[in-house]
């Protein structure tokens, strides 16, 4: 059980370190400019708009492949974050923000089905993922992305993943 009197700064730095260690080691996440907002254990992935993400210059609209990658990254990080939360909180895992190997390896994607609901505008996009089922070997995750209006998602996806061994 977590210590109620643990200093708040220590709690925050542990959780931020865990998130940083999960994300920082992945070159493609950095190249896309994706970062994660954290409120307690709730994560929101943020994809800041960039010219290179455009797939239809006439509209203009985000490339479907950029949206799909964003959803997949949001799902993988959420899954890994959720799976390691208890170990981080209870001190069984000591995350080092500069060392990705201080956290478990990321799950591997088996499949992703993406529904494109609206064309992505040339603006920032946000995504939240929900782990629907997480077992020792397999997990199923749903994820949704939106832009200006949370009630008007631009895309949603379901993915299946294989969990890393030993963690």
């Amino acid at each position: 059980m977590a210590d109620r009197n643990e200093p708040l700064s220590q709690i925050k730095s542990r959780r931020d370190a865990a998130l940083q260690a999960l994300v920082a080691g992945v070159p493609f996440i950095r190249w896309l400019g994706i970062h994660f907002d954290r409120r307690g254990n709730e994560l929101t992935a943020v994809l800041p708009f960039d010219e290179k993400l455009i797939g239809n210059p006439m509209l203009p609209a985000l490339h479907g492949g950029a949206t799909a990658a964003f959803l997949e990254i949001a799902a993988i990080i959420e899954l890994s974050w959720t799976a390691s939360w208890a170990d981080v909180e209870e001190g069984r895992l000591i995350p080092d923000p500069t060392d990705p190997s201080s956290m478990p390896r990321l799950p591997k994607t088996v499949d992703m089905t993406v529904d494109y609901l609206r064309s992505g505008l040339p603006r920032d996009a946000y995504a939240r993922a929900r782990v629907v089922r997480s077992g020792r070997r397999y997990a199923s995750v749903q994820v949704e992305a939106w832009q200006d209006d949370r009630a008007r998602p631009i895309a949603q996806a379901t993915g299946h993943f294989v969990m890393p061994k030993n963690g």
Partner: protein
Amino acid sequence: MTDATDGPVKIDRAQQFITALPYARALGMRIDELGEGVAVVSMPFADHLVGDPHSGVIHGGVVSALMDTCCGAAVLSHPSVRSSTATLDLRIDYMRAAKPGQRLSARAECYHITRSVAFVRAVTTDEDSENPVASATGAFTIEAPRHG
């Protein structure tokens, strides 16, 4: 891309189309074959596209961008399509990790088309073309041609 010009001219025009898409250009995509609802699009490996720092394997999201673009090109190359297209849905199965450092190549085929929807499937391989890296099936819109 719907006129009856010969292959190389058509590929040139399609390549211009692809390099006009910033995301496809940023990933270095190249059209290798195109026509009659079939497209082959390839792209090089790059260190900044890696998704697993432990193995150096390219991120799945890169493979989906390649297949999405390739499927879209296949739809636009179909003789009965005279307008633009957008992805309705795309399912991707990741069969194995692509070899780090190797070029990826996707082949998409628009196997059925109605007035409003095109059904497409695609396969991606690395330089070992016998063992697919990933496959995809998707539905694409056929936008109504604009009048005037």
